């Protein structure tokens, strides 16, 4: 398969998969088979693009010209390659996990659920391989709309309210700011193509550069920069596999990916560092970064805590881009992958805990490590990656982000990163600590206590883990966090083939 065909296949396969899932909806096993087969095939196709991109190729594909100079077109470059890999690879464990979760939980409307899931991956890959702002914006909106039925999956009033917040913030920011920025860019430059070194350099100057950057940064509501972050905690009403999709696989990563793409290929990091137009964004991102960490500390609901943790981690990535140094960009790119792997593990664990013990709050999780040791061990590994401790992948991305801050002579942000790491220890480690070191709270676990009064039995007798289809994916992604520690140079190598200057 030549790369051009591979791009088309990679983007279209999830769409075909969605159709297949819809058609086989009456036979759950067949339907799930279609999901898994599609996910594997998509990952395989995306993977086949890697060697070419590493070798410096930039395969492209123009589908059609929508307006003169505005085309629906794809091109694979390293950053998009990385995001495409993250989305397509994590779809596999997420799909397995979703199958286990939905069946264990007896969810309704499973066909609609899996159809929308496949559509979201379709949109994510469209974003990853977009060659210009129009294509990116198109798939960005498709992603918003295709995930709306997932967020409102339960169809009750709470879900409807969350759906309003979700759609309200994401559509408002994208239409009001992002689209305005795109049209404005078109007016200034007459092109929307992502090109190395940016397209705005020399076309704008003065405060307008910072204004445009602001329109892009806040317009990308999926990047959850405060004050446009509310949709992310609101979307927590959705089933946990959706949270995994939102936080790790596709949606928020689409947001920060868009910001990175814009910084690198629309503004160009040289242009930004010359004009200093992104300095305010460093502070804005730092504020989000710290504020979200502090809010996370106050949340007792595990999923809400993780949601604020995500907001904080996304701000790392935006900060790395705003630093406008090559190292910062590499750090951000790596963090897209590392955070995805870490956060997906944490959400899988939260969901597994909920499925197995129906516990949602951190304060109820005392002693849970005795009944769910594998889940909580995985949680521990995922937490290490989010905090940035070796031997997990998160250590490397934090390293490069800090290095980028130091290189750009913005030492204050090195401090910000370190403080935030401490805060993340504060909100993640108590979960593990309570689960393993505190005795079970008799009030909070009446169901578990009825059939086993003591915890003195053997290790295997005490196990109350989630179903295997939930457990296996989360163990795999936890292992992935460790594997990424050793494969970080390869991720970096991929990113280093990016053309940053003109």
């Amino acid at each position, binding site marked *: 398969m030549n790369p051009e065909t591979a791009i088309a296949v990679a983007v279209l396969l999830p769409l075909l998969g969605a159709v297949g899932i819809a058609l086989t909806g009456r036979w759950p096993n067949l339907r799930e088979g279609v999901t898994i087969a599609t996910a594997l095939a998509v990952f395989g196709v995306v993977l086949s693009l890697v060697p070419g991109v590493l070798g410096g190729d930039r395969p492209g594909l123009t589908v059609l010209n929508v307006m003169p100079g505005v085309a629906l077109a794809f091109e694979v470059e390293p950053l998009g390659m990385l995001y495409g890999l993250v989305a397509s690879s994590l779809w596999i464990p997420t799909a397995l996990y979703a199958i286990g979760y939905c069946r264990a939980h007896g969810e309704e409307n499973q066909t609609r659920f899996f159809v929308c899931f496949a559509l979201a991956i379709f949109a994510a890959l469209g974003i990853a391989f977009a060659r210009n702002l129009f294509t990116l914006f198109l798939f960005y909106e498709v992603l918003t709309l295709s995930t709306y039925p997932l967020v409102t999956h339960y169809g009750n009033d709470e879900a409807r309210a969350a759906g309003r917040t979700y*759609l309200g913030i994401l559509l408002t920011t994208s239409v009001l700011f992002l689209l305005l920025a795109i049209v*404005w860019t078109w007016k200034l430059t007459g092109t929307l193509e992502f090109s190395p070194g940016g397209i705005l350099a020399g076309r704008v100057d003065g405060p307008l550069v910072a204004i445009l950057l602001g329109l892009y940064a806040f317009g990308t509501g999926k990047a959850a920069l405060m004050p446009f972050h509310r949709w992310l905690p609101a979307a927590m009403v959705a089933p946990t596999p959706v949270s995994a999709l939102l936080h790790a696989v596709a949606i928020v990563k689409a947001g920060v990916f868009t910001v990175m793409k814009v910084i690198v290929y629309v503004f160009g990091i040289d242009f930004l560092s010359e004009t200093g137009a992104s300095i305010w964004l460093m502070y804005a991102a730092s504020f989000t970064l710290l504020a979200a960490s502090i809010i996370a500390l106050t949340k007792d609901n595990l999923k809400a805590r993780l949601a604020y943790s995500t907001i904080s981690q996304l701000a790392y990535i935006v900060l790395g881009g705003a630093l406008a140094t090559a190292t910062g960009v590499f750090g951000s790119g790596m963090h897209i992958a590392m955070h995805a792997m870490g956060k997906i593990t944490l959400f899988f664990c939260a969901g597994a805990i909920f499925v197995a013990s129906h516990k949602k709050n951190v304060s109820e999780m005392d002693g849970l490590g005795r009944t769910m040791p594998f889940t909580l061990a995985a949680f521990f590994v995922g937490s290490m990656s989010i905090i940035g401790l070796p031997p997990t992948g998160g250590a490397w991305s934090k390293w490069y982000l800090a290095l980028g801050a130091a290189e750009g002579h913005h030492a204050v942000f090195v401090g910000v990163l370190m403080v935030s790491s401490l805060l993340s220890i504060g909100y993640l480690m108590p979960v593990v600590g309570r689960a393993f070191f505190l005795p079970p709270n008799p009030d909070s676990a009446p169901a578990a206590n009825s059939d086993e009064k003591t915890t003195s039995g053997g290790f295997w007798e005490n196990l109350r883990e989630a179903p295997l289809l939930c457990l296996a994916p989360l163990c795999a992604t936890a292992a992935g966090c460790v594997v990424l520690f050793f494969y970080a140079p390869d991720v970096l190598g991929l990113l280093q083939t990016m053309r940053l200057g003109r």
Partner: protein
Amino acid sequence: MIEHLPALQTVVPMMAAPICVLLRQATLVRIFAIAVAWSCLAIALALLEEVLSHGTISYALGGWVAPLGIEYRVDVLNAYVLVIVATIGAVVIPFPLDGRELRIPRERYFLFYALFLLCLTGLLGITITGDLFNIFVFLEISSLSAYALIGLGKERGALTAAFSYLVMGTIGGTFILIGTGLIYQMTGTLNIVDLARRLPPVLESRTVWIAPAFLVVGTSIKLAAFPLHQWLPNAYTFAPSMVASFLSATATKVAYYVLVRVIFGIFGAAFFFETLGLSNLLLPLSLIAMLVGSIAAIQQTNIKRLLAYSSIAQIGYMTLGLSLANLNGLTGGLVHLFNHALMKGGLFLVVACALSRVASPDLEALRGLGRKMPLTMAAFVVGGLSLIGVPGTVGFVSKWFLVLGALDKGLYAVAFLILGSSLLAVVYVWRVVEIMYFRDSDAIVERDEAPLSMLVPTWILIGGTVYFGFNTALTAGVAHTAAQFLLSLGS
């Protein structure tokens, strides 16, 4: 035969109307009317093709050469509008009539088709003619048949709605006639091309200065431009949905065409925009229309009325493009003619489909319809997304050019308001979506889809909103050429 196409464009539907009355038998008349409407579309497409490849066509009706005789003059602008009107006519007319929405029994359906074809004749005639008085004549043909079509609605309100439309429409028509009379008095001609030649020497006279006021206000009433829109919500609410679909997609578009023709084709853009300063009036009114129309739509409890108010907002987009008076703005306004025709025509057909299964157009009656009629309601969602202007739909294309037009003029606040008003569309579209999909979501509903004969026309229009969202060569391409043509007229 080929050289007589301009005449056939109006003669074919006009002669077909009395034949409908002679045929009488409902099914026979329906098939006949469909055939006529599709041949009108074929003629319109042939004319557009001809104009795009060979330039403006001038046709002397009855062999009487202009300026004495009536000239049919087809340039890229009205060829484009002809295609819009004929397309909507051809797609909407096969939609089956539903006794639940119509005042007349099945034995008299032939009258409906006769009226429909007369209305089509009038709209095509207004567009194709190159004679100002002839515009008035066709305007009356289309208006009178439209009043009757609206009055066919089952509810009693349809009669008062038709009556108030008649009053407003007559005032509008009279104003146009007065304006026409005033400039005829000064120039002694009614031919539009001739007028454009003879007006400049007398442009300073007070008579000529008053004429545009009458013409603009008159057409604005027919266009339902804010604040002259009061007739529209009731007319669309009480008209049978299929009629609302046809009128919302064509009548206001043709009125917009007349306005553009008067401004650019007769007096010249310089006179309107520089001497009279039309933008100072039209721009704020357009913005108010966009906001007020959308906010009013949010408050409605009847889906047809909701769509009607949305139309007022969308007409605001069109007049906004006009008031920007630059290439991108005008392209946006003109492309929105086609785009809005597709979405609003399609959405009213969705309502017609829904009304074949539920008792009333109240939003409350639509609860849970998302699962009862999944295909119909999916069409609503797609059409609604197009109203919002999501990329990949026609609404995005219109918005793109309008925002660009505003930025070209340095009107950043206007660009922001254009985008902001599309967010109001999110609110009123999503209100309906929530009711259809979330209310009573626990109740068990049998799937009870509208028949294929209804779904096919609906999905042709709704599918068009997506197709032309990607393929803009025909729509934006022609609108761009038309805008260039218009801006070149004065210079």
